[in-house]
């Protein structure tokens, strides 16, 4: 009667020691020079240049010539020594002063080896073409489209190289440095996104394109044309959890092909970061995954702190860990609540949203806002914890579990929900990794990858908790794993509360990073000068680049940050966890019905603010 077991997973970090010197993830840089010699020796000399270990990079970095990129990617994925099977992120960078102006930066991760590798491919502006890596990693599909959209790099062999975040009528490539951030375009309806259906019958040849034409009967195709129908769901549709446009080709009630158009909520977060100071980016990060905005704050601030080589004081780290876990609970509550609403279980929505409401009360007592918290600062927190913080947390620990167990009692063994969810939109672990999945959705497919365990940060390595894993890979297990993770988060919080609040300041005492205390700024000349200087000039972050992963509520949230030593970021690339997950959506819903597609979307926990940035 008991469902699939959720045993604690072995740490991937502890299990791997095969790759020479690379088993410890970000740590071992000393062996960088002879790292993966076996892979490198298969390619012509000079085509792969490892960056020397003392160059100050956070992870092994290779500069790769584009001719060998496709071969190298396949080799890195398949070689037993490396097994880089997860393409975490693909970022474009623009250096107008360089001869080879653009750089495509691939961040690879190896789940069995718990190792990371960064590939940098320089590309000249005159010939901005790269080989597409979609045959190697499916995750490259949307990632390459994004780089094409933002930088104008082209990828040969890509199945559908079109704009993804900007409108089709947009001109130019917004993340190029010579693109004015204030520039506006009038978007007309004559150029809109042409959906790409991978149907065998050549269906996408010129239909289902124009405004209001989504339902047109295709001109070519096989005989039973009249059985087929193309429908639009969204962009503005309550089932779409935001503004996505799903175009589905139906055969009867079965979706035989579909395509997703995103970008309705694109607000060019990354370009805006480049025009603001490091500190001013924090309110922007709130709006990425707005269900758990505090985690975004933490992820960003941690990355900048690492680049600055400072550490937040113990009190701030302690509070960050607790509030991150509360935010994770909140996010999981929202996801499960809305998924069950999509399946018709409105009661669960009420039950799940009550803990969320209470957690919002805690966050508001800490920082003054419920949704967009902006509580973190680079170097700590914006203000000290409220006096009743412990009491409030304790109260939450009592309030939350009954609601979760109520939902479990309602749904876990409820045949109505089981029939809707078990086996629907299933994906195996191997496929999910290839599509770039991380987070609870990946763990529901049987892969025990969690950044908090693989590369522990904050206080996660000092508390006792498990990584729940389920093996169904379907909506039901994605729902179950979130409930299990809520309990693990509560366990983490309880241990940290028992440990007691560390004494000390809530932000670093460094006038180059954090504003001096107000009392000093009012009364002391030196503090006043630092206060003015920090606000007028901003934090001067030393030159360098860094990719730092954080476990967001729905997967690995990574910030890839480049600094040129000034007060403003040179480039910030966010690795939103739901971007690769959403790119799988068309594949997941193929063969199911429209109602299955709706609950699939809910179970994936796709948050538009983070997906489209």
């Amino acid at each position: 009667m008991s469902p699939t077991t959720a045993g604690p997973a072995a740490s991937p970090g502890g299990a791997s020691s095969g790759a020479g010197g690379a088993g410890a993830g970000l740590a071992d840089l000393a062996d960088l020079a002879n790292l993966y010699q076996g892979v490198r020796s298969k390619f012509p000399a000079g085509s792969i240049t490892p960056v020397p270990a003392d160059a100050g990079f956070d992870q092994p970095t290779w500069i790769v010539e584009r001719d060998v990129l496709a071969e190298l990617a396949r080799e890195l994925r398949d070689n037993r020594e490396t097994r880089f099977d997860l393409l975490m992120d693909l970022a474009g960078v623009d250096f107008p002063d360089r001869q080879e102006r653009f750089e495509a930066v691939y961040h690879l991760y190896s789940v069995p080896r718990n190792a990371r590798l960064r590939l940098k491919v320089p590309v000249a502006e005159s010939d901005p073409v790269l080989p597409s890596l979609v045959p190697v990693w499916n995750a490259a599909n949307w990632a390459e489209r994004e780089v094409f959209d933002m930088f104008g790099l082209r990828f040969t062999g890509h199945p559908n190289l079109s704009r993804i975040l900007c409108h089709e009528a947009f001109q130019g490539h917004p993340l190029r440095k010579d693109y004015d951030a204030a520039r506006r375009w009038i978007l007309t309806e004559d150029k809109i996104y042409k959906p790409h259906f991978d149907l065998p019958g050549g269906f996408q040849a010129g239909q289902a394109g124009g405004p209001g034409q989504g339902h047109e009967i295709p001109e070519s195709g096989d005989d039973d044309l009249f059985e087929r129908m193309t429908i639009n769901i969204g962009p503005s549709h309550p089932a779409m959890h935001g503004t996505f446009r799903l175009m589905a080709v139906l055969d009867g009630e079965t979706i035989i092909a579909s395509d997703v158009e995103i970008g309705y909520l694109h607000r060019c977060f990354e370009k805006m970061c480049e025009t603001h100071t490091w500190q001013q980016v924090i309110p922007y990060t709130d709006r990425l995954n707005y269900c758990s905005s505090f985690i975004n704050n933490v992820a960003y601030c941690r990355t900048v702190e690492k680049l600055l080589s400072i550490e937040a004081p113990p009190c701030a780290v302690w509070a960050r860990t607790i509030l991150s876990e509360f935010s994770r609970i909140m996010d999981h509550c929202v996801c499960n609540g809305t998924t069950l609403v999509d399946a018709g279980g409105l009661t669960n929505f009420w039950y799940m949203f009550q803990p969320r409401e209470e957690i919002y009360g805690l966050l508001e007592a800490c920082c003054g806002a419920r949704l967009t918290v902006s509580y973190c600062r680079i170097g700590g927190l914006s203000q000290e914890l409220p006096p009743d913080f412990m009491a409030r947390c304790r109260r939450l620990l009592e309030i939350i579990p009954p609601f979760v167990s109520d939902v479990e009692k309602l749904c876990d063994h409820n045949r109505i929900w089981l029939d809707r969810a078990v086996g629907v939109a299933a994906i195996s672990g191997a496929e999910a990794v290839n599509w770039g999945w991380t987070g609870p959705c990946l763990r529901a497919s049987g892969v025990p990858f969690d950044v908090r365990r693989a590369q522990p940060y904050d206080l996660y390595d000092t508390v006792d908790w498990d990584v729940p894993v389920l093996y169904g890979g379907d909506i039901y297990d994605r729902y179950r794993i979130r409930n299990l993770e809520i309990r693990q988060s509560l366990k983490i919080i309880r241990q940290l509360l028992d440990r007691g609040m560390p004494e000390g300041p809530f932000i670093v005492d460094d006038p180059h990073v954090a504003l001096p205390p107000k009392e000093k700024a009012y009364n002391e000349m030196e503090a006043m000068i630092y206060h003015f200087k920090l606000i007028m000039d901003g934090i001067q972050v030393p030159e360098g680049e860094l990719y730092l992963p954080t476990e967001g509520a729905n997967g690995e949230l990574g910030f890839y940050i480049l600094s040129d030593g000034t007060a403003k970021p040179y480039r910030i690339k966010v690795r939103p966890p739901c971007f690769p997950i959403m790119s799988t959506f068309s594949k997941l819903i193929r063969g199911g019905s429209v109602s299955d597609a709706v609950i699939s979307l809910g179970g994936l926990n796709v948050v538009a603010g983070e997906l489209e940035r």
Partner: protein
Amino acid sequence: MNTSPVPPAAEPDPYPTTTRPYRQSVAERLYLPLVGGLLVTLRHFLRNLFHPGRMLTIEYPEERRNYSHRFRGHHILTTRPDGSVRCVACFLCAQACPAECIHIEAAEHPDVNIEKYPVVYEIDMLRCVFCGYCVDACPEEAIIMSNNYDMAYFNRDQTIVGKADLMKPFTFDEELLGYRPRYPEEEAVRAKMRREAFSLVDAARRARQEQTAEELSAVSATSAATAPPAPPTAAGSPASPSAPPS
């Protein structure tokens, strides 16, 4: 070029290539667990029926939610005792604002000690993201935030709020205040918590003293009776053998 040290066959496949979906039991097929679910909803129904006060929902305009005194709401420009604006038009808030929603025009103040004051101080409430950076930036405590969150306007012109309107809500009513550099009410709570903690510590110390005194008297009584075994008894007592001074 077989430099790979790991034998390919030795390692099992790291990920499941198939899915193992959940199997329904007989009871589940018979919809039996639904009875438990019905009890859950019944419990919630009865609780909400008999304890409506425990429900989280509020009927908003009539009933208002209690936010903390850190709430980041509508801005307030504070004033000097004579009622003039405290702002000295240093532009730090406008500089710190990530949304670029603060517009200031400065002029010379008649008082030479103050130098400048804002002729125009406008906040575009549609642009504002209520992050509180202006409050952090202000070196004069001239801009703080209030608890007021219902900002509704009839047209867009009204959303650009000027100096007069920003100064109006400031009434020294602590209920109205929100995010600001100092929280006197919090200080009171902290002081109370400190007093309680001190009194707890005091009580603990007094109890320990009494205990040690009792033990010491017991020890002296036993040592008076039998002299040799006295030192181990004294060392075995949990508190330090020498009684702390009063």
